[in-house]
């Protein structure tokens, strides 16, 4: 399959609002991810970053606005149908299946991928994260935080996604492991052309890796621009890059 041209829209989020019960979490958010692009979404705790990623996946569905994937409206689809259209999510807190082996976790990631591609995809994930090859028959719950994050990303990759959603992959990890994870994310994007929407509190790393970025404040997009511009923006520097 030929890679689509960079610039065409992978994901278009138009005026999306979402709420958990009466609590409004997102308010009129507009955000795009182009084909083959890494876009980062930065913001403080509680700004709505995780909610936005979960809303893309239909949990909960957007209360207002539209979400389109490769031009197709996915706003009201159930989660597994959205996954079937090419969205894979490595969610906040990793959500590893703790009682299943690493292999079974990866097999679950491959639920919707063609069975014929399983061996090849597994091989790719284990090449990207050689640590997982050593741990393949170990239970997910016994792994270290960094290894669990590798399983979460690897599990998402097993679906052969067009759009990869990553929620705080650096959270709670040692600096060396964070560098490994970020290197892997860049590699996935370069080698596979996978579009990536990366939510991070570690704005420094995220802006260094991404092409473009958005800043989410209290459920609304406050700033957007090229990652390089955001990295030198005084507001961003003060609020998210520690001055």
């Amino acid at each position, binding site marked *: 399959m030929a890679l689509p041209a960079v610039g065409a829209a992978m994901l278009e989020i138009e005026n999306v609002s979402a709420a958990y019960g009466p609590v409004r979490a997102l308010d009129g958010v507009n955000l795009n991810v182009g084909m083959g692009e890494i876009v980062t979404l930065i913001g403080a705790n509680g700004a709505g970053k995780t909610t936005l990623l979960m809303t893309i*996946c239909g*949990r909960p569905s957007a209360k207002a606005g539209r979400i389109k994937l490769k031009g197709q409206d996915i706003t009201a689809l*159930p*989660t*597994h149908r959205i*996954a*079937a259209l090419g969205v*894979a*999510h490595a*969610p906040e*807190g990793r*959500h590893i*299946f*703790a*009682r*299943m082996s690493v292999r*079974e976790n990866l*097999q*679950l*990631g491959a*639920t*919707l991928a063609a069975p014929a591609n399983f061996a090849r995809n597994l091989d790719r994930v284990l090449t990207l994260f050689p640590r997982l090859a050593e741990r393949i028959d170990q239970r997910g*719950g016994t792994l270290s935080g960094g290894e669990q994050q590798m399983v979460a990303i690897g*599990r998402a990759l097993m*679906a052969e996604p067009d759009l990869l959603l990553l929620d705080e992959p650096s959270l709670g990890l040692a600096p060396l492991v964070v560098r490994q994870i970020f290197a892997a994310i860049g590699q996935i994007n370069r080698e596979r052309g996978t579009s990536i929407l990366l939510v991070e509190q570690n704005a420094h790393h995220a802006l260094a890796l991404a092409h473009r970025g958005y800043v989410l404040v209290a459920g609304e997009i406050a700033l957007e621009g090229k990652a390089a511009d955001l990295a030198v923006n005084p507001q961003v520097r003060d609020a998210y890059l520690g001055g």
Partner: protein
Amino acid sequence: MAYFLQQLINGLTLGAIYGLIAIGYTMVYGIIGMINFAHGEIYMIGAFVGLIGLLALGAVGIASVPLMLVLVILGAMTIAGLYGWTIERLIYRPLRSAPRLAPLISALGLSIALQQYVQLTQGGRVKTLAPMMQGGFVLMRGGDGFAVSLNFLQIFVFLLTIVLMTGLTLLIQRTALGRAQRAVAADPTMAALCGVDVDRTISVTFVIGAALAAVAGVMVVLYYGVIDFRLGFLAGLKAFTAAVLGGVGSLPGAVLGGLVLGLVESFWSGYADAAYKDVAAYAILVLVLVVRPSGLLGRPEIEKV
């Protein structure tokens, strides 16, 4: 010794039947955390389908017992499976995010409705079936002339239970469907993000549980030859007890719980007063739960985050 052996055989047979029903409770509890109190009625319906099927096949002149059994068991599994699917789809699914009491009360109401439905359509009187599988082995004779018998039907119940349990274990442990079921049980949101159709997976779980209960229903028709519309209530309660005894959510636990319960009832009836066999069974349940609150094979509710 001979008498003991006979009670052992009887208890294991009864226990295998309890175990088959208990699996339905434990699977449904494992995947959506709900006790499906209408499950006993599915078993009762399975027994009725079995009885009607056996009489109907006999009426059309099919005399081969193995053929009859295969057809009747498959038919009962199919029809009970449809009941299980429909109940989940129409009643439990809309209540899935409701407070926990709502589906529980609905299950009790459904249980009564299904009983009344069978009473109205089949009549309230006891139905009987002439013994179909006669014969067996005399294993030994005691000094007092007591003969220990193991009949063909008991062997059949054991073998079928073992085959079904093995098949179910392989399904859960080795197949994509089983993996999806375990994933939905552990973390439904993450399962959906992986592309698992959570609703369909839950439906399939109900169908499997109902189909196994129907097998137990057919066994009971064959084994005791007497059924009525109230059959599901006590058996459902016993199987639920077996599931809790073994550790609700655990498949081997359900079978173990069933066997323990069957043996306790059988030995109590054999050596003490049969009228008190339920007291003995529930006393064992209380004792086990005092010592191991999560059941014999249940695991304590600890999640590593």
